[in-house]
């Protein structure tokens, strides 16, 4: 049986390897982290409910404190749940998510499922795994801040974890949801990133 306490989280591993900088504990960054978590929770609800017909997102209207669907009554339950205590500052992120889902059509098959790899002493929780219309199995990670070089290593490490449980993703996508309601995404498919991810893992195993 796995002992979760022995497992190192991917993001912590990247910090320890010096690839991702240690985040200083400031009120501003704490706020940014909280906002990121809330956007992730919200995007999870949206992606779960709008997954099978991503185009229904087009009918999603966001007005002031309200967020509801114009076209799908069956989705109203999910939206109403969001409505209660809804933080309006998150609305632009939902618009950004909507934009991403329209620009990058994908049917998600796996959402926020944690992977514990005892053999590697690693654990990670990739945001989404899904299939693009052309059948490409893709890993998607949502980000609410800026683009950083370490993001590609985070995705590569997730890809390694997924690969070891038999899910072989060919594309890794960082989706950047911006506070102005826009979004952009970066597609990674380099084998070098995977090879470097293994180097990071092997160093981690040596230091264990």
């Amino acid at each position, binding site marked *: 049986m796995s002992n979760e306490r022995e497992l190192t989280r991917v993001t912590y591993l990247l910090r320890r390897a010096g690839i991702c900088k240690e985040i200083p504990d400031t009120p501003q960054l704490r706020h940014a982290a909280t906002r990121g978590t809330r956007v992730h929770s919200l995007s999870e609800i949206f992606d779960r409910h709008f997954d099978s017909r991503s185009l229904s997102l087009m009918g999603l209207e966001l007005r002031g404190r309200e967020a509801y669907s114009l076209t799908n009554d069956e989705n109203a339950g999910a939206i109403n749940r969001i409505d209660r205590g809804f933080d309006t500052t998150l609305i632009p992120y939902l618009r950004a998510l909507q934009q991403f889902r329209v620009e990058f059509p994908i049917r998600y098959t796996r959402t926020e499922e944690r992977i514990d*790899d*005892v*053999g*590697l002493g690693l654990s990670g929780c990739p945001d989404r795994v899904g299939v693009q219309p052309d059948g490409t199995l893709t890993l998607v990670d949502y980000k609410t801040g800026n683009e950083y070089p370490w993001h590609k290593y985070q995705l590569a490490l997730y890809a390694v974890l997924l690969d*070891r449980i038999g899910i072989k993703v060919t594309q890794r996508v960082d989706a950047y949801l911006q506070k102005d309601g826009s979004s952009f995404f970066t597609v990674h498919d*380099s*084998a*070098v990133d*995977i*090879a*470097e991810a*293994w*180097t990071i*893992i*092997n160093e981690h*195993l040596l230091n264990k």
Partner: protein
Amino acid sequence: MKTTKQEAVIVRMQNIPTSPSLKKARVLVEESGMPGHWFPKLKLDLEQPLNKSTFSVATELIAGYRELRASAVKMYDEMLKPLNEKRKVILKWKRENVESIDDVLERVTFRLSEFEKQVEHEREEQATKALETASEQASQEQSEIVRDIEDALTFVQDDTVREKLEADLVEAKKSPPPLAVVMEANPASMNDAPITGTDRFSCKVMDHVLLAEAVVKGTVPPDAIQANQPWLNAQARKEKTFFSLPGCELTITRDYKRKGGRS
């Protein structure tokens, strides 16, 4: 007494030769009272629409001010002429020097980017091979571990040891060993370099019609295309009041010039 910049300009403006038309314009205005202040206060209330009596004031004013403007432009142009000539020379030196530096930068950038792309391509191939090799090795290693455990299970009698071995067997089958990927150091690594590379993305329109069609279909936002304003203006000038294009509205603005030969 120190002369302020504004006063200096006023003094120079007073030196502008005045024509009869300009004199007329000056008559139509009253001095503001400031010593040396050339700019007059208008006798024409521009907040009010014109009437029969102020119409002629306005036409004379425009004629006079047109001439004043021409004189002012000429005077400043003369003052600027020697400066412009010097500036032209200095700009030429600057352009020549910077151009030669830019040329070197451009050529080295091209070579560097070419080398980086080649290295990236080679490293991609190297990584793919390294991953394949490491994967084969790991798979072999996993089979050996599984075989060893299975062999051990055939002769181990002790139940506790058997249980332990069986658990190990399940784990060994489930979890392959980590891949020992060996990669050479990146020869184009920028880590210790005094520069950093940034990709700049841009776009060149290859088929305007195709792009416009996509905008019409709504798959591309209208911001992607921009109306050719100089061409549209030229059409409007050519067709005058007959100008009619979808999505466009004719705009007419009237301008006034001094009549030729009148001073």
